[in-house]
């Protein structure tokens, strides 16, 4: 990996109570050669921050839990201040494989796009409720926002620093994923998609049916009123 590229690339991992998984995620990412791995501890009640630091990550800690959207914003703002040119957003629960990171960056450079979205293959490993929810939300996004994204709720994304300034979201929770897409559509940013592997540790973690309804309402809200 190009040393210069590594310095410009920041991996942002918003985390809440991920003591169990964060160490492994950070170690695997650092082993790939990325030195700017930033874990944003969103007011965790366990040892997420300490575990991440011991694994070699830089850390930022919110004194209170603000939500994933806020934690991601904190990480991205910090990275931009420190000179990041490319930002990778990934989850701290071990769902995303760090070895996919180089593919994000390669796709961004080869296709010369502002953003790269990771999409999860819809197979039997994905919980049924999630499969239906993802399908419905993707169709809704295409019709309402006019942008076709296969997996609108995947948190594994790659963003150019200049593009981040345009898509910077107001949402503090999971709605950020949809708001990011809405802002990308509004600014007509160029994007690409790559398939990613996902590991589901906990079927009951993440978005529920009620979250799905909220996401659908947010798609309409972001289209009509912005963030």
């Amino acid at each position, binding site marked *: 990996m190009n040393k210069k590229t590594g310095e410009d690339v920041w991996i942002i991992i918003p985390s809440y109570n991920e003591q169990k998984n964060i160490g492994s995620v950070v170690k695997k990412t650092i082993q790939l050669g990325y030195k700017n791995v930033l874990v*944003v501890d969103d007011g965790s009640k366990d040892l997420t921050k300490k575990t991440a630091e011991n694994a070699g990550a*830089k*850390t*930022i*800690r*919110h*004194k*209170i839990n*603000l939500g994933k959207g*806020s934690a991601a*914003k*904190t990480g991205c*703002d*910090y990275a931009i*201040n420190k000179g990041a040119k490319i930002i990778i957003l990934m989850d701290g629960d071990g769902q995303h494989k760090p070895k996919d990171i180089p593919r994000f960056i390669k796709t961004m450079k080869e296709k010369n796009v502002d953003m790269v979205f990771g999409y999860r293959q819809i197979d039997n490993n994905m919980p049924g409720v999630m499969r239906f929810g993802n399908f419905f939300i993707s169709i809704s996004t295409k019709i309402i926002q006019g942008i076709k994204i296969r997996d609108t709720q995947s948190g594994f994304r790659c963003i150019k620093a200049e593009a981040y300034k345009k898509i910077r979201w107001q949402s*503090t929770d999971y709605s950020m994923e949809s708001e990011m897409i809405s802002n990308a559509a509004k600014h007509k940013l160029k994007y690409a998609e790559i398939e990613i592997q996902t590991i589901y540790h906990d079927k009951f973690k993440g978005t529920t049916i009620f979250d799905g309804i909220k996401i659908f309402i947010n798609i309409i809200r972001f289209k009509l009123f912005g963030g």
Partner: protein
Amino acid sequence: MLAGVQILGILFALSMIYITYVYYRRKNYNLRSLALWMAVWIATLVLISVPQTVYGVMQALQIERTADFFVVAGFAFFAVIIFYMYIILKKTNQKLEDLVRQSSFYEADKTNNKKKNKK
């Protein structure tokens, strides 16, 4: 002769005047807020005690019963209050988020500088 509902309304307005004054004395808000809320409760007291004061408005709005007028007016008033509180809450949330973020940047830079100095 006052109707039962009028007596209830007057007791309610008097109770709110008292509570509003007590919380002012406990320094929960300033004189301006006290004046505003006292105006609201006193206006409520006057309208309930002397409903004839709103007959002109009721006629213009084609509302027949005084109780209906109070329900509609009350609903509109509280809708405005709720909207105002929504705006305040959004602003407060944003300020809180900005504050937590600034604080976390400060702590992170402090920690990183310490590590650099140790090396």
